[in-house]
């Protein structure tokens, strides 16, 4: 009985310390950036139209949301192809696994105008994460990059909120 209690206690502590995804990749319509807290600092809005059009991306988002990374990996192995959808899904997978250099490699293979915005956003995020790993963080440099990015899409209010959260994130991880 005592052993069961100790194991339960350890498991509860372990789960509670592992439940905070840093990156949240979700359909743009399902979440209000105002409601996000410290557990979801990096929010990547994926346009609903993209998810409706792509079963692959939709399934990826669902599996990421459920934190079923192993299942997602198997799924991506099954549907492996050379389409932009696949490369984006694979990028999301690598980001969730915090394998940033691999994510950059796959991201650079995306050559589709409809993913241009996400590609640019993720590219800055990944640059920052890699710089962070190399202890080469530079708050001002990344702030300027995000600034140039949102100025490129001046009418995208949700993007501004998502980027504002990233700026907070890099400030507190400076």
């Amino acid at each position: 009985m005592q052993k069961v209690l100790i194991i339960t206690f350890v498991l509860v502590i372990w789960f509670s310390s592992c439940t905070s995804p840093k990156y949240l990749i979700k359909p743009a319509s399902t979440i209000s950036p105002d409601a996000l807290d410290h557990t979801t600092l990096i929010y990547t809005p994926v346009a609903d139209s993209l998810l409706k059009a792509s079963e692959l991306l939709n399934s990826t988002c669902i599996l990421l949301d459920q934190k079923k990374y192993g299942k997602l990996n198997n799924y991506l192995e099954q549907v492996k192809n050379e389409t932009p959808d696949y490369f984006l899904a694979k990028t999301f997978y690598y980001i969730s696994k915090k394998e940033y250099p691999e994510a950059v490699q796959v991201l650079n293979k995306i050559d589709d105008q409809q993913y241009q915005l996400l590609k640019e956003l993720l590219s800055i995020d990944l640059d920052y994460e890699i710089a962070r790993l190399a202890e080469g963080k530079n708050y001002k440099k990344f702030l300027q990059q995000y600034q140039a990015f949102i100025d490129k899409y001046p009418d995208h209010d949700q993007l501004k909120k998502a980027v504002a959260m990233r700026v907070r994130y890099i400030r507190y991880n400076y």
Partner: protein
Amino acid sequence: MKKTIFYLLSLFLFISCSESKMLSKSLSKYHAPLNYLHDSKLTDCDRNTQISWNIAGPQVMDTSMVVNKINQKILPFLFYNYTEVNLGVNLGQNTLEQDYETFFKEAFQAESTRTSCYTLSTEPEHKGYHLEIQVDTCQTKSTYQRNSTTLFFLLAYSMSFQEIGFPAETILTANVKLHRGQDLILEKSYSVRRSQPFIKKQNVNVNDLRNDFVNNMTESLSITTKDCVEQIIHDLNAVISKERAEN
């Protein structure tokens, strides 16, 4: 008895003074950037009007972090002791990576370039427009709490310590005067007060917490400056547009 009370009071006074000093010294080790994201839309307004400007900049900020004790709570029970010390912290220039006055100037210039209907000029024009900005108050305050709990179990006891940072609040007041030649065409005081939510992370050690605490205060100051600068530019645009319509 009197002596004991005197010694105890002296000890409490010494502890409370050293606590404030130690926190002040510790927080002064951290430095945070003064910056923010400009989320205003770039305008293509006519910028033919030149405005010369200057920011009157007396030192509005404390040079170093000031920490004062706000209150202390002690709950001395038989099996449970709880102590809590709340310290008030005022942001000082020494924890900023940049001089605040320079930051204000740069923020005003950058926002003017994005959204204004005028061009800023450093050359004074006797007949043209001249803008004077005076930052009167710039205060960023926050509360830092340290608490400890002790539980006694017969011959054993358990102690736990915790430190908590609370959201920073900034009060920024500025006075703005716009002259056309010798005529004063706008005089307005701006008072912006803003509380910046504290970021909460899991499993944070004391160093990270203090770093985040200083960052939160600096972030609060940055965003409040942003709000103030945007308000000033909005009013200046309205005045310049009105002047154009009248002439």
